[in-house]
């Protein structure tokens, strides 16, 4: 792992990695739950949703960061929401043009990216206080972290609930799918399971550190 350092801007590798691992939006901060649980019935849907969110996140953080000194403090949230809504409309039309079946699978949840707390949270907490380059790198990390989280959920649910991964059958035709995993309750269970796994890993590593 190479450490990319640009001291003049204060951008460290951590600016990027913060969102991917340490502050992962899905597993650590538990933000943006609505799209996370609703679209992760298959790995393909999960990745498309992640990429769409990544695009909106990066472009709105760039714009917010560019105009951060022009916007009066009182109307900043409204401004951010309008910026985000503009980019979401863009993504909505792009997905509709590229793949209609994907558009139908994701449904209204593409438009609901607007109210994804991760994006507004990043715009308010990071992009409005930092120069464009740093904001973009941080947003990219967050977006990739979000995509990884979605993929982990989507893949688990698709494997358990349909016996497939990215549409390829894994276990042959005698596999009895665990249908509840692709139904709404499964979303809660799988995310709960992942969080359990992470808190188990964290307590293990804390114990390990205490022994040394």
């Amino acid at each position, binding site marked *: 792992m190479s450490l990319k350092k640009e001291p003049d801007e204060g951008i460290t590798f951590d600016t990027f990695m913060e969102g991917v691992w340490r502050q992962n939006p899905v597993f650590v901060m*538990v*933000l943006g*739950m*609505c*799209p996370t*649980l*609703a679209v992760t019935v298959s790995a393909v849907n999960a990745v498309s949703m992640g990429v769409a969110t990544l695009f909106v996140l990066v472009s709105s953080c760039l714009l917010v960061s560019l105009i951060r000194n022009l916007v009066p403090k009182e109307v900043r949230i*409204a401004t951010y*929401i*309008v910026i985000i*809504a*503009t980019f*979401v*409309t863009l993504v*909505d*039309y792009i997905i509709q043009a590229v793949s209609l079946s994907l558009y139908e699978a994701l*449904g*209204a949840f593409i*438009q*609901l990216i*607007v*109210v994804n*707390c991760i994006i*507004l949270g990043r715009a308010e907490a990071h992009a409005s206080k930092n120069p464009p380059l740093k904001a973009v790198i941080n947003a990219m990390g967050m977006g990739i972290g979000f995509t990884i989280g979605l993929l982990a959920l989507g893949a688990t649910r698709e494997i358990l609930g349909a016996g497939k991964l990215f549409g390829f059958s894994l276990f042959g035709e005698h596999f009895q799918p665990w249908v*509840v995993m692709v*139904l*709404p*309750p*499964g*979303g*809660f*269970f799988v*995310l*709960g*399971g992942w*969080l*359990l796994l992470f*808190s*188990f890993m964290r*307590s293990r590593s804390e114990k390990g550190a205490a022994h040394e």
Partner: protein
Amino acid sequence: MNESLSQIFIATLLTNNFVLAMFLGLCPFLGVSGRLGTALPMGIATTFVMLVASLCAYGLNLLLSAFHLDFLRLISYIVVIASSVQLVEMVMKKYSPALFRALGIYLPLITTNCAVLGVALFQTARDYDFAQSLTFSLGGGAGFTLALVLMASLRERLQLANVPTLVQGTALSLILAGLLSLTFMGFAGLGGGE
């Protein structure tokens, strides 16, 4: 299109509950459901905002389609929701300052509640007429309140239970929500919808 009003109401309240079946409004669902005392007013405030947003969205949609400005739909919806939340906030501050203080930060956060925008988007996508939209938003709000109150009661009980430290926190709430969602699946087919 030709769903009856009672079908829509029962579907949004139970079978297609916004929180437990459609995953809308999960942030307040996990955030505010710690205590029963805040869960109920929050649910009612959200229902009211949903109602206002749904009415505005209906009018707005007519206007936008008349001028062929469909691409502005999302932006105008979100602005309408943000302003109606502001309105609710001002009215509540004037007429019921106690409730206003009790809800605190959660009131402005209704703006970013997916359930509110969800109501506006789904009623547009399904071409509901005026009465249907109204029922849809009322049912959605009631369903949201129901889920919030149930979850808050469960979590208040759970505070007395002896849970391993590893499971405590969000993981436990999520598994609990999963169980609740499983129960709501039992309502499937009710009301003759789907």
